[in-house]
């Protein structure tokens, strides 16, 4: 059997939903960052799938950009997490509310 575009897209959508659910429910900063990574990769998957089925390399190029940016984002996000941990001794988002209006 061959995998159709729909199969890829369904997996991609499920991954995105899992990531989004993680962002919404998790309180741990690291876990939220990881969930965002999952969402980004879900999008990457759909880009690549479209690219491969549509005979168009633009999707793959976009995926590469997304990976690069995700790397930057993780670097900054982890750095923030470390600093937050240093100052607050926790990385729960509930505790980090000093800038709340």
């Amino acid at each position, binding site marked *: 059997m061959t995998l159709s575009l729909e199969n890829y897209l369904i997996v991609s959508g499920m991954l995105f939903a899992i990531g989004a659910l993680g*962002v*919404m429910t*998790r309180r741990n900063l690291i876990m939220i960052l990881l969930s965002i990574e999952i969402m980004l990769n879900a999008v990457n998957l759909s880009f690549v799938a479209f690219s491969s089925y549509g005979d168009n390399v633009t999707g793959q190029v976009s995926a590469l950009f997304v990976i690069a940016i995700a790397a930057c984002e993780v670097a900054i996000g982890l750095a923030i997490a470390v600093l937050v941990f240093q100052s607050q001794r926790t990385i729960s*988002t*509930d505790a980090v509310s000093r800038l*709340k*209006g």
Partner: protein
Amino acid sequence: MTEWLILFLPFFAAVIIALGTQRYAKLSAAVALTSIIASLILTCRLGLPELFEGHFSTIEKSLSWITLPGLSFEFGLLINTLSFAMLLIVLVVALCIFYYSVEYMEGEKGFARYFAYLAFFTFSMLGIVLSNNFLQLFIFWELVGVSSYLLIGFWYEKHSAADAGKKAFLTNRIGDYGFILGIILLWTLSSTWQVETLNFLHLANYLAGAHSHSHETLLTVISLLIFCGVIGKSAQFPLHVWLPDAMEGPTPVSALIHAATMVAAGVYLLARVFFLFHQSPLALEMIAYLGGFTAIFAATQALVQTDLKRVLAYSTLSQLGYMVLAIGLGSAGIAMFHLTTHAFFKALLFLGAGSVIHMTHEQDMTRLGNLSQRMPITTGLFIVGALALSGFFPFSGFWSKDEILVLALHQNSWLYVIAMLTAFLTAVYITRAVILTFFGSSQAEHGHEPKQWMLIPMILLAILSLVSGFRVPEIMHQSLDHPVHWNWQVAIVSTLMTLCGIALSVWLYQFQPQIVVKIRGKFSGIYQILNRRYYMDDFYDWVIQKIQAPFSRTCSAFESHVVVQGLVNSTARLTGACGHWLRKMQTGRLQNYVTVFFAGVVLIIYCLMARVIS
């Protein structure tokens, strides 16, 4: 240009004094006096010979002020025979009083302020005299009220003076409320007539040419409402209570404002807009009765007053009643004639009283007496005024009062009897005042003749009180209406009345003072009623304290409990509650926002999909 200058020169003087020369007392007085003299000279040049020859031509100058569709207001001056004569009266009396005040107010702390107020008053009064439409007249009417307030309360540190000022102002406000309602009503009526202005001449022309009298009821209402303003300003019953209290002001002020000019402004207004009142016989009848009633009502109170100025104040009320009576009987000319003579002799009487007060520092007649030896000239001048007031032949008061009596005899015998009785009472109370002040047993310690600053104006006014009975009636009648015929019977009866009054008063107060005491003891009830001014002030006090104050407290309670607590605060609470509830959405937690955001995205996608599928 001349006309505008006449009006505005006193205003400029007031401004100059207030802004510039306030620190220099003499200079301020000079500025005020100069402005009045200049105004008077300009007025005389405007057409004094024509006035006396009887062919004064009407001058109207007006600037467009507010133009609306269906209505235009002007700011203008209308000088006809009536207003020109009034202009002369006001300026001549004002000049006398300005001149007199220089000595009377000498050394006062607010000397410059006094002259500024006085000049401002003159400006406002000239405004009333010259206005060519109702709205402008009303503005000046109020300005006159303000300057009257300022001058009554001139010695504002004195509690009674400050209170009297307030009382005068508030009482006038009641009348003016009716006045402005009348003006508004007239405005609506004038737009249905297509006149679309409140200009006196236009309205008069329209009413003169109007055939139908379909608006007669409305005109009566308008007339009576406008008359409300007159009741306030000219201190007619029942709003007369402020005038006796207004005597708290400096005496020259009482002479100028509360005797000669301002209180007469009401009568002048009636004469000026007589075309309106002419349309409504019912309104005129009511006016006549009210005037007659005020005349006798005030005269009886003047009988028992012990304060010299208050006697004159009640006498002013009574004489104003005469003028209003004359208007009510349909003759504006006779009313204006009496206004003229009254302005001169009442100003004279007040200035005489002022001399007494200035020299003895006493105005209670029971503590005065026998001043005729120390102040012979003042006594003589005061007696001239008193004789003119009581209508003694050939003083001016005789002629004007006689015309009113003849008019009353022809039209309404009740009012004739009242007017005759009032003439008798007038003679009694003014003779009483003369005797208690200038004759009888001496009680005042000091007092001597004032200097020329005070004497010259009095002499001038005395001359005017003597001669104004002769040429004035022709001037007044040629513009307003025809004179009444000379009636020997009335003249003889009124002279007899006056003589009886004078004789009775001389006999009682000069020769038999113990009888006065006996009468007072016997009729203590009546004496008490008169002395308490018919309990009018007590009645107003009662109304204010027992009716008006509880009513306003109820309103206040309604306002604070129902309006503020109920409506305003509950609206605020509802808004607050909504905000409090909505605040929960703003948790500050990023994840809640993200959840809502995703929920929104899902919703949008769902909607789009549903569309695509269907």
